[in-house]
């Protein structure tokens, strides 16, 4: 049981990291707290489901299309809504929250809930580690988590666009004087964040099923991971997903599944109260609290 809990803690952490990384990227670069993140996750899941099951497109084409369309939706959201309230953090929060709410409640209204609303697993098989059964899909998620973290690190440190991303994250005005168009970069960062949400949906949804309430859950989990790790810090995301992932699994096996959510929420409150910039966020301390 103990070994099983450890293994599942690790896999759970990978799921959390994949969920949170897009939110973290957008916030870290453009400072936009994208509260429509959970809605983007669910939107892309339903989109791939529709393309794959109703229109019977090949799987890879359906997934790629839905990721691209979600990115496009994110870019449109930035261009038509966020651009006009840019810089007013609270207006941004209310606007993105409103969009997310509208999308999620629309799906809720359409009532697309049930076991048939799920995406296919890539490999329908498992492997025994010790005496614990682990399915390949979860291992795939772990692999994706590793690839994403490494890929994003390489992207932000070694490509022109990635360096521009970090430029506007550090100082928007100085970046402007160097010819980096901050509005366009911010738009790209929102779009990329939404695309990562879509990617996360593609690999995580097969573990369960698609439902609008999942959208709120994803948003809360992404917020939890990002707050604990420090908003905008990739290292923080990894450490925080490990913390929450293990905490959740251990409460689940040794206490009761009712307390799983409470533990992660309590962890957020604790970290926010003591160190609001999170475990690894060092910049902008004065903007966060006084």
């Amino acid at each position, binding site marked *: 049981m103990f070994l099983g809990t450890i293994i599942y803690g690790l896999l759970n952490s990978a799921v959390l990291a994949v969920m949170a990384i897009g939110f973290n990227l957008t916030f870290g670069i453009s400072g936009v*707290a994208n509260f429509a993140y959970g809605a983007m996750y669910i939107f892309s899941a339903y989109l791939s489901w529709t393309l794959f099951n109703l229109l019977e497109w090949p799987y890879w084409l359906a997934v790629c299309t839905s990721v691209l369309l979600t990115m496009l939706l994110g870019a449109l959201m930035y261009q038509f809504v966020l651009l006009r*309230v840019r810089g007013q953090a609270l207006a941004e*929060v209310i*606007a993105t*929250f409103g969009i997310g709410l*509208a999308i999620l*409640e629309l799906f809720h209204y359409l009532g697309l809930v049930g076991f048939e609303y799920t995406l296919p697993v890539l490999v329908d098989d498992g492997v025994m580690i010790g005496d614990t059964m682990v399915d390949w899909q979860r291992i795939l998620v772990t692999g994706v988590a590793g690839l994403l973290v490494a890929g994003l690190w390489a992207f932000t440190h070694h490509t022109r666009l990635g360096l521009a991303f970090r430029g506007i994250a550090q100082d928007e005005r100085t970046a402007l004087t160097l010819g980096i168009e901050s509005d366009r970069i911010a738009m790209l960062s929102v779009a990329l964040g939404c695309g990562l949400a879509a990617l996360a949906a593609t690999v995580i949804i097969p573990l369960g099923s698609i439902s609008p309430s999942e959208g709120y859950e994803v948003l809360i989990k992404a917020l939890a991971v990002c*707050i604990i790790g420090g908003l905008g810090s990739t290292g923080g995301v990894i450490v925080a997903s490990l913390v929450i992932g293990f905490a959740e699994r251990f409460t689940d096996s040794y206490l009761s599944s009712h307390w799983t959510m409470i533990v992660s929420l309590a962890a957020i*409150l604790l970290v926010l109260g003591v160190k609001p910039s999170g475990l690894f966020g060092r910049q902008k301390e004065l903007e*966060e609290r006084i």
Partner: protein
Amino acid sequence: MERRKERIDRGIKVRAGDVFALSSWREMLYLLAPRLIPVLGFLILPLVLNAYWQKVLLSVAAFALLAISWDILAQTGMVSLGQSLFFGLGAYCSGALSHGFGWHPLLALPTAAVLGGLLGTLCLLPVLRLRGVYFSMVTLIIPLMLVRIVEATKIFGGTEGLSGIAPLPSKWIELYLIVTVLLAALFGFRRLMDSDYGLVLKAIRDNDRSVINAGINIYWFKAQALFIASSLAALTGAFMTHVYMFVGMPVFALDYSILPIAAAVVGGPGTLAGATVGAVILVPLSEALRGIGGLRIVFYGLFLVVFIVALPEGIFHYIQRKYHQFERWVEVQ
């Protein structure tokens, strides 16, 4: 030839702002009308409406109170995404007092307001130092957490809730109580926000560091604003508990967080009157849209976005401007 819009105060506004206001009926009316219309409206409407719309008026008043409470917090620089926290705490306090100890509703209401206010303040006291988005995130999370705690520990009836709570003595007491509370809160807190005390609160929103510089303890003031806002929302929650004769996990639902924000944003944040106007528009609208069921929340979400982008000042400021000023096109030199 380029032109621009020029806004000039109406003559009557300038005269009415002075002692001359007392010299003519027209100017007195100009000053009084905006105040008398809501007062008379809220006092007369219960008499002319039928039983169904009386219930709607009840929820208009309740959501207006929640929106006012949100606006007080927002004016102090604390934007809450979880008004349902305060609402739910008040509801559970009143429910427990009434159900557990058999208190009379009229006694349980004020007690629950104070108790709920204190609990709400205590919940957020540890994060009082947080600013902006970070505070909002915490307020979004706490109600969700309380729901789970109620679910997990099965206190206060757990998922079933407490039912059979004593109602208020009569329908008329119910209606006029909430309407009176609303009018008192609207005008009282408007006055408060215009006083020196309110000035300090607004200054905390505008620039908290310079308020600290002026030797004012901003945490103490923020805690007070939190208490004012949360006890107002707790009172609303307690009141609705006695109206529904039930309290359960739905009191922490998203509705009670979203509708007040939508009302305040649509009506115009920063005036309290705007919050009331927003509730007066949105709640009956949502009743009219009852047929479409769950789609209502979709519309609230879209309303929020449209107003934040297209009319960020809100309806109330817009009307106020038209009332006080006239506009004309002039040529740019």
